């Protein structure tokens, strides 16, 4: 491991410097790497999934044990259709997320930094936000049929608001002294957006991306499930209507694992773009 990287990992896992922890020239206990901790958490969850169905609480027929689910998963992994479905879902997800994040971030920064626009659009945004994507299914089908745009419409509609609301809150977070500084430097409107509003909103946006990433995944799968466009969701629907619980849970496991992978990606991105932020720079102040 490069020194830089190991330092980062330490920074991530080391306790805050002010905690009541023995320190000094005594060797400090090596912190457990976060990945290991995460793996331990996953292992615990899987174990719970194995044990729970063996108790009288739930019926293993409807809530299969982890081992049964993993066996079904192994079958799936060997099938080409599974990988095709996965690719379809990922396509819808990635495209939908990209559109939602780009539109949400751009509009959020724009609306957020123009107070009159913000005031004028607030009520409309709040009106549109709670409309469930699932209620739009017939409309999506009517407009785009069962093809990709249909799924995209639902994905973007759901994920967009998450990003927008986060960015709007982030733009509002600009430090008053920093704002004064920018003004006194006579930064242009664009410079102020790029150098003040955007970096301030960035931590908010990152949370928005993490929220939107999973919402997009959820909606991509749901849309496939309901509309029947090809993808993981459709596979889940088939398993569901066939009463194949093991396979259904195996597919859910895949959806969940995608969520975890997506999160890892966003975390890595966060470490890069938020290196300056207290939440990331962590130790060694």
């Amino acid at each position, binding site marked *: 491991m490069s020194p830089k990287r190991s330092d980062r990992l330490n920074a991530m*896992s080391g*306790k805050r410097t002010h905690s009541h922890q023995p320190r000094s020239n005594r060797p400090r206990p090596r912190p*457990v790497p976060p*990945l290991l*901790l*995460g793996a*331990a*958490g*996953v292992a615990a*969850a899987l174990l719970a999934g194995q044990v729970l169905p063996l108790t009288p*609480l*739930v019926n293993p027929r409807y*809530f299969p044990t982890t081992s049964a689910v993993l066996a079904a998963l192994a079958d799936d992994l060997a099938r080409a259709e599974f990988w095709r479905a996965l690719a379809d879902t990922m396509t819808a997800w990635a495209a939908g997320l990209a559109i939602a994040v780009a539109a949400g971030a751009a509009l959020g920064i724009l609306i957020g930094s123009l107070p009159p626009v913000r005031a*004028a*659009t*607030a*009520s*409309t945004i*709040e*009106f549109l*936000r*709670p*409309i*469930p994507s*699932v*209620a739009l299914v017939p*409309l999506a089908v*009517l407009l785009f049929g069962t093809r990709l745009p249909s799924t995209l419409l639902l994905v973007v509609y*759901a994920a967009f*608001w*998450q990003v927008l*609301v986060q960015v709007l*809150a982030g733009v*509002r*977070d600009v430090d*008053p002294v920093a704002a*004064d500084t920018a003004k006194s430097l006579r930064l242009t409107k664009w410079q102020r957006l790029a150098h003040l509003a955007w970096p301030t909103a960035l*931590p908010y946006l*990152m*949370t928005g991306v993490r*929220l939107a990433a*999973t919402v997009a*995944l959820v909606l991509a*799968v*749901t849309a496939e*499930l*309901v509309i029947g466009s090809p993808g993981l969701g459709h596979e*889940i629907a088939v398993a*569901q209507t066939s009463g194949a619980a093991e396979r259904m849970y195996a597919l*859910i496991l895949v*959806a*969940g694992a*995608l*969520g*975890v992978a*997506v*999160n890892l990606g966003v975390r890595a991105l966060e470490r890069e773009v938020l290196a300056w932020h*207290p*939440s990331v720079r962590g130790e060694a*102040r």
Partner: protein
Amino acid sequence: MIVLVRKALLVLGLPSVLFALWWFASAGSTSFYFPPLSEIVAEFGETWTAERWREDVLPSVARLGAGYAASCAAGVALGLLIGRVRWLFHATEPVLEFARAVPPPVLVPVIMLFAGIGDGMKVAVIISGCLWPILLNTVAGVRSVDPVQLDTAAAYRLGRFRTLTAIVLPGASPRIVTGMRQALAIGVILMVISEMFAAQSGLGFAIVQFQRSYAIPAMWSGILLLGCLGAALAAVFACVDRAVLHWYHRQRTEEA
């Protein structure tokens, strides 16, 4: 007075314009699924009678309230814990991310296995969606509290509990409130979704029934109602926000 008029204009201006656009654009519509707005509005009064409010809307809103309140409490409590305790953060993150990525249509049957099919299940479904924005924002907020403020709290040995309640919680509150704002709309959406399963009444149930029985204007009126509900809740939320975070907003608006 002028202030009030200005405010009303700001709140109602854009919605009125959009409404008018929709009205005229759909005026001659013969599409089955996109009826004229005039028809939807006429249907609105007929559909959402006092009885429907009593039987469908209010119970739904009550479940929403319960689920939302529980999500706020759980999200903030968990978020504070996870945000402060590093190893817990790393140990729970993948599992939580996993849970977050399970789509409601497959999650709800699982919840039904454990929580039955009554109100408890529906509240649980609402929580399963509302929790995440609050939790994620709380964790992010806790982790971005000003280090100097944390040092101050530590130097005066405020103690875990007081540091949490007097420093970390208010320090993270702008983020927490953002999460709660997000969750509000998600709660309404999950309220509808929860009523697509094992329901016999409710606002979401009614909308789904209209859709299934091809009562399209009624379905649209339900969607309108959802939007109004969301906007109304957001207005209430904004008041609470202004009261709780007045120190935050005033610092940013009072000067200049």
